[in-house]
């Protein structure tokens, strides 16, 4: 029973949603919309679970004085602070202020850190000598120059060259990868719908 019931649910739901995706039929559409509504609500409930898990993890870290427990205290405090602001100041604009002047700058600056990381990664990656490094160095240099150079000038030829690289060889690579990924996604999904894979048990 413990294995049958969930499997049945997954199979039936998957089948209905799959057919509803392709077929235009009043009954199927109603059923499909009903199930989609359920997926939306379940995802929202999952966030509550995530909140609980976070509190559990960091409370344990603090209680056991594990390495980096002060950071856990900060995380707990800011989580509860965010919750308080969100629940109390939902319409009062407090949450808006919290987002604009606390969460947004923190997150955007963390994104800005990626610039430093990616450049040092480029220094490591573009190694002349190895096939990968050489190809990436040459292509990367061309694409950078072709994108950043103003029109015309001595190196003006690089811009159309960059266009060609993006719209022919790079396109071929991305298209091949995307096609393979599509096949992989279909296989993964069908493995579940064919009862071969049961990740939900």
């Amino acid at each position, binding site marked *: 029973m413990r294995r049958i019931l969930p499997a049945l649910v997954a199979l039936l739901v998957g089948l209905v949603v799959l057919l509803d995706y392709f077929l235009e039929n009043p009954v199927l559409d109603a059923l499909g919309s009903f199930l989609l509504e359920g997926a939306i609500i379940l995802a929202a*409930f999952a966030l509550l679970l*995530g909140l609980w898990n976070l509190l559990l993890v960091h409370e344990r870290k603090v209680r056991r004085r594990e390495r980096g427990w002060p950071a856990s205290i900060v995380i707990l405090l800011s989580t509860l602070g*965010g919750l308080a602001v969100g629940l109390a100041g939902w319409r009062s604009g407090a949450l808006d202020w*919290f987002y*604009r002047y606390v969460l947004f*700058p923190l997150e955007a600056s963390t994104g800005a850190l990626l610039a430093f990381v990616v450049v040092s990664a480029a220094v490591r990656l573009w190694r002349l000598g190895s096939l990968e490094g050489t190809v990436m160095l040459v292509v990367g240099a061309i694409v950078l120059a072709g994108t950043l150079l103003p029109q015309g000038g001595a190196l003006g030829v690089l811009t159309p060259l960059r266009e060609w690289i993006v719209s022919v060889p790079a396109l071929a690579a991305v298209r091949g990868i995307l096609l393979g990924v599509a096949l992989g996604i279909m296989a993964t999904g069908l493995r579940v719908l064919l009862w071969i894979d049961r990740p939900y048990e």
Partner: protein
Amino acid sequence: MLTWPTLPPPTVEGIGVTVAAVLTLAVLSAALGSNRVSRLAFAVLVGAAVGYATTLAWWLVLWPRIMRLVRDPLREWPLLVWFALGLLLVVRGLGAASAVSSVPLAFLVGVGVALAAAGAALGTGLPLALVPWPGYGAAVQPAWAKALNTLIVAIGTTGVLLRFAYTTGSQSRLGRLWGGLARNWGRIGYLFILIGFGTLFATAIISLVGVLVSRLQFLLVDWLLVVRG
């Protein structure tokens, strides 16, 4: 024109801008290596993100539906099913494994894989397999260039596809043929993959530098008001 730095006025917005600038500097200090300040900022970031997302899910998804159910329970009763399943999902997440508590997860898996598989088939697989050639941006090209590009794209795409072939070890006659084809054509494909990676990596540099620029503009223009006009 450039002016001397001046802090924003002590209004709610002004204070907010200063707070944001301080947090920005705290995070950017990690560019020189992880330090106390940056660790503190990251901790605040994690907590703030969780709190914010959870409250939004509550106010924008759960609360309206609860209200709907309360106002008109007779017509909105199906919501009860989903609320019950949602609670079961939480129970499963707390570690209680049983036939019933696994149902919500199974439901999510079913919906997810069905939509993903259908979308991959209709939205990605089909159109990308039957792209009309020569495609995009080819209007201005001469005929020979179109033909050449068409050929290059076809060779590259198939090469990349074959590069990832899994069953290349078979010893049957057909299997050896397939394996040899996949290996050799796949080498060409690998070259195309590298070219594609080089392109994507270069654009990644440009993109992330753009993110950095907007942050520094905030510091210099919006906070310190060094640049006017």
